[in-house]
Structure formats: structure tokens, C-alpha cells
């Protein structure tokens, strides 16, 4: 049924910390690994060992260059930073990918707000992917059905797994702890506290989809690293390297070798 359920009392989702993500792509790889053998059809690749490989992925990491500005709004290009940006389904409250579906294959669960595709009913028309502003859905070229993040619905409720493994594969595999999983409808949950204290935000709020997943902003650099003080405080590395201050036996060896040559 492609009508959206009443607002769920439980909204499971992810909180992704853009300050911490190092862009290692481990979450994407583990996502592909788990989901190719988990829920629904395998996540296929085309021309996997050829010159133009492609395939369906439910999580992809883009990297952006962000130039900060000072209080007056002047760009600070010497402080430009790389922000690694993982992107997967945001399990929106007002998910247009659900309502546009002609067959009822695309649905949002009333009990926890997870957006899923019933792959046995999906005709592969692609309209849900068009309706998603975030590019969270990808057609599987082998099975002809739409694939998307399931929030690892086959892990988080899986009683065959140890309790500590009952979280999405991407969260479990993140080596930097940049990804968090929890109930964003519960204001006392860890993820909600994190969002409130760090100023968590929605992606493209102007599209009106009310995403459940939240992102945490990169922290501002401390003034010590700001461009106006850097030249004074950072030692001159070149002269430091040339100035031989070594002592002891290594220092003697260094000076002797210099003298010989």
C-alpha cells in the first residue's frame, strides 16, 4: 500500500557525523557485502571486471571541498577542508518515493518508519528513483527491481545475531564511529541527544520530504589553525630540517658522514 502510514511513534534512522567521517568507504563496502546476500535480490554489478564497471549500491560516499568564511563572510580559501559525505536512504516522513509507486511495492512501515521495497511486486518503472531528491534508490540491472537502504532490517531485529551486532552494517563497520543508529522519535535516545547538542540538520529541507536521518556538521577549526595566526606560529620547517641539532652517537655519525662527503 503506497499511502503513507500515520506518523510513526518510532522512527529508526541514522545520524552521520561529517566532522568524523574519514571517507574510507568501509560502510559502503560492508553495506554492499551484507545486502548482496541479505534482504531481497542480490545487489548486482555489470561489467564488474571490465573497463566500465557499474552496479547497484545503497550507500555511496561523496567528498566535497568546503571553503569556510570568517564572521564578516569573507572566504578563507587557505582553510578549505575536505568533507566526506556518506549518503543513503533518509527514510523520510513524507517519502514521495512511496506515494508515487503504482504497484504498492514501495512502502513505509508504520511500526518503525523504515521505507522498504517489496521486490516481488516491484515492476522496475523507476518513478520512485525520479521522485527522490537524494538519489537514494538505484535500479538493479540484473533483477529489474528497485534497490534501496533497508536500514538492515534483517540485522536490527535478527535474533540469530548477538545483541551487539543488531545494528546496520554501515554503523557496525565504521572504524571512526561517524555513524550512529537509533530512534529519532524518542527525544531521550542517544541519537536524538547527539542531534540536539551538535545542531544536527536535514538534507535539502526545501524539498519538503522531512528526512528522518540527520547529519552533524563539521566542527569549526580552532583559532590556532586559522590562517591569520598560522604564519607566526608554525615553525619554519625547512630551516628546522637543515639545522642539525642531533646529539649523541647519531649526531656524531651525522656530522662525521657530512665531513667525509
Amino acid at each position: 500500500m503506497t499511502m503513507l502510514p500515520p506518523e510513526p511513534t518510532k522512527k529508526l534512522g541514522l545520524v552521520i557525523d561529517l566532522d568524523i567521517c574519514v571517507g574510507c568507504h568501509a560502510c559502503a563496502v560492508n553495506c554492499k557485502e551484507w545486502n548482496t546476500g541479505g534482504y531481497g535480490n542480490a545487489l548486482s554489478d555489470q561489467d564488474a571486471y571490465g573497463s566500465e564497471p557499474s552496479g547497484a549500491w545503497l550507500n555511496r560516499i561523496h567528498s566535497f571541498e568546503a571553503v569556510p568564511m570568517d564572521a564578516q563572510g569573507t572566504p578563507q580559501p587557505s582553510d578549505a577542508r575536505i568533507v566526506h559525505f556518506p549518503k543513503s536512504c533518509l527514510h523520510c516522513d513524507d517519502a514521495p518515493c512511496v506515494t508515487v509507486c503504482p504497484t504498492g511495492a514501495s512502502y513505509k512501515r508504520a511500526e518503525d518508519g523504515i521505507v522498504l521495497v517489496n521486490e516481488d511486486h516491484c515492476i522496475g518503472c523507476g518513478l520512485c528513483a525520479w521522485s527522490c531528491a537524494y538519489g537514494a534508490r538505484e535500479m538493479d540491472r540484473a533483477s529489474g527491481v528497485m534497490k534501496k537502504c533497508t536500514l538492515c532490517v534483517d540485522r536490527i531485529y535478527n535474533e540469530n545475531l548477538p545483541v551487539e551486532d543488531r545494528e546496520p552494517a554501515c554503523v557496525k563497520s565504521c572504524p571512526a564511529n561517524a555513524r550512529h543508529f537509533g530512534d529519532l522519535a524518542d527525544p531521550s535516545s542517544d541519537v536524538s541527544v547527539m542531534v540536539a547538542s551538535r545542531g544536527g540538520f536535514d538534507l535539502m529541507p526545501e524539498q519538503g520530504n522531512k528526512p528522518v536521518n540527520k547529519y552533524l556538521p563539521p566542527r569549526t577549526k580552532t583559532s590556532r589553525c586559522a590562517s591569520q595566526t598560522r604564519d607566526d606560529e608554525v615553525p619554519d620547517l625547512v630551516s628546522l630540517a637543515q639545522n642539525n641539532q642531533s646529539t649523541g652517537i647519531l649526531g656524531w655519525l651525522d656530522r662525521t658522514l657530512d665531513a667525509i662527503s
Partner: protein
Amino acid sequence: MHPASSVIFFTTASGAGFGIMSWLCVAILMGHYTLTPHTIVMGVIGLVLAGAGLLSSTLHLGNPQRAWRAVSQWRTSWLSREGILAVLTCLNFAGILALYLTSGVVLPWMAGSCLVLSLLTIIATAMIYAQIKPVPRWHTKLTVLCYLGFSTSTGMAVIASVSPTRYHVYLAFGGLVLAWVFKLLWWQRASRTSLSHDGSTTATATGLTGFSSVKLFEKPHMTQNYLMTEMVFEIGRKHAARLRQIALLAGGLLPFICLGLAIMTGQTAGFVMLSCVMHLIGVGVERWLFFAEAEHVVALYYGKS
């Protein structure tokens, strides 16, 4: 957006088919209670065009054998509504033809319901595109007017080709002008509708709004993916301006001149047939551009701004 040839053929052909059915129903409602061999030929052409278009539309599906499931979600889905309305329109129209051929009776109420269903089908087709907010150039009521305009203009062009009466040629002329007025308005809006029409930028897409600039440094992968081939389609976009000229020339100006000559010289049949063929070709090119020129906000994640 990727211009799938099956979808271009579908919207052009079934648009013309439903246009033909609409006009024939209007004729019946205006008191033409007898169907001539000419009108029956037109009606059959309408059904064939609509049916061929619908069949073609299933070709772009990943699992066409399940297409029947698409009739279930009429409460929320324009694609579902379109499927149901298209089938009902064709059944209703086939009923009108069958009743006439078997008993010589034409019931105006059947034409009335068929006209309403047919126009709703065209609107539903247009709404599949007009509802997509992430594609700012599609997300306008003008899209619906364009589809209605070209459906009725191509429908009347076919009718006038089969039966080039003075009345039909005038209507084809009027329909052609009206359809292109809508399309030129649409193009004008499209030219000033950027990817950030609704405020979406690379900064809002990533939430990095506190920075002076945000640009893509590295894509997630080196080669193409579904999102890029389907929604960040760019092949041939450099020819867009030239193709617009071709669409306008073949689909608008030349048919306009042909129909004008037909009206002035009275040598109708050849000119009207020629104008119909060119108009359909031009609308096909216009439909290709409708997809190829449309930008999706997901492109913001792939370096567009």
C-alpha cells in the same frame, strides 16, 4: 533525465490516440450521431495508437510481466491512475464503436464519459512528470497544458489527414497554434528555471550551509552509475538549442505553413497529410528534449550547480 525511446514513443503515440478519441467524442456530443466509415477509421487509428503507446511504455519496465499490479495504487500514484484511466478510456471508446457497428446506435452519454476519461488520461500522463519536485523544469502546471495541447493537436492532425474537410483543417490549425503557445511558454519558463529553483544547492544538499562555497571534490566512484545515466543525463545536451529549432520548425512552423496553404489553395489532402507527419515528428523531437533537458537535483551530488 534519460530520454527512453519507449517512453517518448508512448507519450507521443498514446497522446495522439487519446486526442483522436477526445475529438470524436466531442463530435458525437455536438450532435453527429452517425459514425461514417471515415470516423470509424479514425477511431480505430486512435485505439491502435493508444494501445501501441501503452504497450511500448511497458518496454522500459524492469519486470513488465507484473505491469498489471500498477492498477492498484490509484489513491496516491499518478502512474497507477494513468494506467487505469487509459484502459477505461479505450474500453469505453471501443464500446462506442462496437455498439454502432452492431446496432447502429450511438449513445451520447457514452461519448460524454469517454471524453472525460480521455482528457483525464492525458492529464494523468502529464502529472507523472509534473509532480516530480526534484525536476524543477517539469514541476509546473504548464507541463499539463503542454501534454493536453499536443494530444489534441496531434489527434486533430490525424483526423484532418483521414478526412480533410474545411472544418477539420481549421481545427487542426487552431490546435497547432494553441499547443505551440503552451510549449513556448514552457520553454520560456524552463530557460529561467535552474536546478536551484526551489532553493536546492550543493550547500543545502550536503547541509554545509555555513561555508562560503562547497564543491564536489571526488565522486563516490570512477565510472557511471544508475543515478548518473538516468538522472544526470547529459549526452546530446549540447545540441539542445539546434534540436529546439528542429522541433519548432518541423513540429510547428512547417505544419503551420502547410495548413495555411491548404486553407488558401483548397488543395487540402496532400498538405494536411504532410503537416500531420511533420507535426508528429516535431512532437517526438520535442518529447526527447523534454527528458534530455530536464535536470534533477540529485545532480548536485555529482558536481552540478
